[in-house]
């Protein structure tokens, strides 16, 4: 299914590129007035789509799809962490202990960081789509790389902060007298650990996005 989606996207982007060149050349003929060489012009302009421009289009399509993937990953992580709540009775004193993401400031930072990254990725989708159409836009690609790097650092920071606390919750620490809370809160621990996977995957996908942007910038 993914392969067919990829091929569909490649086909639409190539057809857009060719049709854009043909439409541009048609405008030229209208300006010069009276040169009815439409088919000839299209034949000439389709040879302008050099292999380098095709590669940049392919890379831009890949960038667009990876952005959607990363947005889904961060959104899933934020939602999984944000909706976790567990209440456990403490038998000897018959009181209820509640565990939520807002009890630990590191988990709060994780949810906020992933939400911000998801919002940025969704907002950058139109610019990424514009890069598919126009393969000569270098300055806006650099701006996108700048923001992608900042988001990569943010997502990685959030994910590794939460990972440190999840590790502590699983294992505890005898030297610091920190008790492993996962022994009481089973489902809370499981869900928070699972939401980390989505965030780390999104960070990896962001690295791939930055690399594809660099390849697109460095090509002629």
């Amino acid at each position, binding site marked *: 299914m993914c392969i067919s989606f990829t091929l569909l996207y490649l086909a639409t982007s190539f057809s857009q590129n060719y049709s854009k060149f043909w439409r541009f050349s048609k405008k030229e003929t209208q300006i010069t007035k009276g040169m009815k060489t439409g088919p000839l012009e299209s034949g000439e302009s389709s040879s302008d789509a050099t292999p380098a421009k095709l590669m940049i289009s392919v890379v831009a399509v890949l960038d667009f799809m990876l952005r959607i993937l990363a947005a889904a990953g961060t959104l899933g992580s934020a939602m999984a962490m944000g909706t976790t709540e567990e209440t456990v009775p403490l038998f000897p004193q018959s009181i209820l202990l509640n*565990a939520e993401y807002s009890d630990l400031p590191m988990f709060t930072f994780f949810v906020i960081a992933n939400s911000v990254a998801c919002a940025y990725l969704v907002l950058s989708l139109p610019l990424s789509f514009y890069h598919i159409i126009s393969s000569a836009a270098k300055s806006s690609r650099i701006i996108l790389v700048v923001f992608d790097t900042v988001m990569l650092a943010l997502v990685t920071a959030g994910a590794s902060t939460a*990972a*440190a606390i999840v590790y502590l919750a699983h294992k505890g620490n005898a*030297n610091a007298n920190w008790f492993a809370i996962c022994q009481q809160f089973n489902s809370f621990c499981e869900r928070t650990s699972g939401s980390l996977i989505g965030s780390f995957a999104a960070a990896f996908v962001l690295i791939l996005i930055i690399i594809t942007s*660099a390849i697109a910038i460095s090509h002629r």
Partner: protein
Amino acid sequence: MKSDDHAAIDVPESSAVAKGKAPLIATPREQKSRFKKGLGIFDFLLRLGAIIAALAAAATMGTSDETLPFFTQFFQFEASYDDLPTFMFFVIAMALIAGYLVLSLPFSIVTIVRPHAVAPRLLLFILDTVALTLTTAAGAAAAAIVYLAHNGNPNTNWLAICQQFGDFCQKVSGAVVASFVTVVVLMSLVLLSGVALKKH
């Protein structure tokens, strides 16, 4: 009609050009290569700064042992970085980053000497992005533990250990700050490489 004689205009060369002393305006390609050389030199200097910061972070965390002069029945009286696995990961990761940055110095010199070569810059860009991720991960994980050591957490019954181990806490916090300085420098290195990759 012979228009060749009328079309050809004779412009006598200036005496300065004949003597070979006329100032030549730098061609666009020379301007570009000077700009890229400047970027390469700045990249090299930033790399040196990042090496110093990463080594400082690893060394400060690695030498942060503290032994209290008294003892009680309930609390540990010795604190070191290898008591917490997160700090061990921090030391190993920062040492790795410092080693990578030292090994990337020759590639940085190559980008100064050959300003228009794309392959070394692209390689450095990709590796710097990976290094940025690793440094951020190590710094953020250690920062989480340091925050916990300073403030504790009443919901999970985790006590703040900085009350007893003041020196240990200070050194460890300093190491985390140094690692975030490394993160900032690595980020600017990535951005510099991104600008330098552009072929105007």
